[in-house]
């Protein structure tokens, strides 16, 4: 049994977007605050802090998760992916990100980090989603700028491009 005391900071080792990372956290520290303030990874946004808005969505060991409903101490030894890991290079957007740009799927951008993480995870599991399935999945996110329709368009476009991209990769191999 491991008991971490409330008034101490504890060492947390984890993998962040493929690279080893570590920091210190009290048991009550949320994964959102840990990523932003201890690690300096501010791509994950903090909105409602009770799991409703979806802005802080990340993946933990491959599971899609609200970082605001996760404690930093829970992810010791885990593999975390955040929006910072989506672009293939610092000066290049990923296919999904580029589709968001083309379709004006963001305006203020506050919700975007979480939505990109959900879509990136979802399209890997379900490469050919219907619009209804996408809308159902996006019910876990609040966007107050776009009315969601441009997000759906971007997601469908990205799904098509990713499918072509994957089949091209297979042909190359």
């Amino acid at each position, binding site marked *: 049994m491991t008991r971490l*005391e409330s008034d101490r900071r504890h060492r947390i080792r984890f993998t962040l977007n493929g690279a080893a990372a570590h920091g210190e956290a*009290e048991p009550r520290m949320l994964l959102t605050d840990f990523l932003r303030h201890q690690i300096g990874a501010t791509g994950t946004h903090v909105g409602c*802090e*009770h799991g409703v808005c979806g802005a802080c969505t990340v993946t933990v060991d491959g*599971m899609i998760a*609200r970082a*605001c409903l996760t404690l930093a*101490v829970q992810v010791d030894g885990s593999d975390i992916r955040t929006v910072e890991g989506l672009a293939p290079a610092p000066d290049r957007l990923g296919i999904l990100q580029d589709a968001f740009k083309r379709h004006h799927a963001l305006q203020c951008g506050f919700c975007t980090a979480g939505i990109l993480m959900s879509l990136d995870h979802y399209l890997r599991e379900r490469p050919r989603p219907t619009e209804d399935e996408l809308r159902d999945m996006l*019910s876990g996110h609040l966007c107050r700028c776009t009315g969601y329709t441009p997000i759906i368009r971007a997601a469908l476009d990205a799904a098509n491009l990713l499918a072509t991209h994957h089949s091209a990769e297979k042909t190359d191999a």
Partner: protein
Amino acid sequence: MKPAPFDYVRAETLEEALAVLASEGSDAQIMAGGQSLMAMLNTRLAKPKVLVDIMRLKELDRIDATSAAVTVGAGVRQRSLLGWPPLAEKLNLVALALPWTGHAQTRSRGTICGSIAHADPSAEMPLALLALGGEVHLRSGRQRRKLAAEKFFTGMMSTARAADEMIEAVSFPTAGVARCAFREVARRHGDFAIVACAAVTSRQGVRFAVGGVADMAAVRDWPRLDGSALDDALNAFAHELDARDDVHATARYRRDLVRLIGRDLVREVLR
């Protein structure tokens, strides 16, 4: 919106978790997927001194099916049960209701037993457990006991669980349910239900359960009813539920939904 301080215990065995509950009592709180509890901690509606994380206990992450019931362990996430291949065949009501529990992004972490432990009056899993006449398997260092769902839920977010007990599993009966139906009305799919209803066929006729209206889900058993007899039964039930106005809906709207959805669902299962 930050939790008050607590010690964090990562249990490696069930006995360790039970020992913490035995020594700390109501100051300790079990956490499984945390999808209800973390929101309570963040808003400081819950301020445990010790949080006991049970998600590394492999023995709790199991679904056992017999001819009579499906038993879901405390470590089984909602997404895992939704992806369990026999779910629709064995537990159709849960297959219908579970997609309404939270969102894909919370079902990936949240557990079935956690939702039942939380006992939110509008939650789908307590409603399904009650409608099917399921049982909650409680365990402490001193005893194991099983409580029928109707005895387990005692009010708004309150249950008959003792301070030193944890839910080890819940079991949903599968025998004797020929047909079932579920419908929910919420502001946004995945939000808390304004009204959620379930109907199942029973030995005497039909069992109808309503969540989201009173301080806990409520259930009625009726013989085969139709026409004005069904309308009268639903009307009486809707009034007995003590519906209240809130920011999402008026009491009258809730009663209307119970009558309208109830008529459809009861007819659907008795067809």
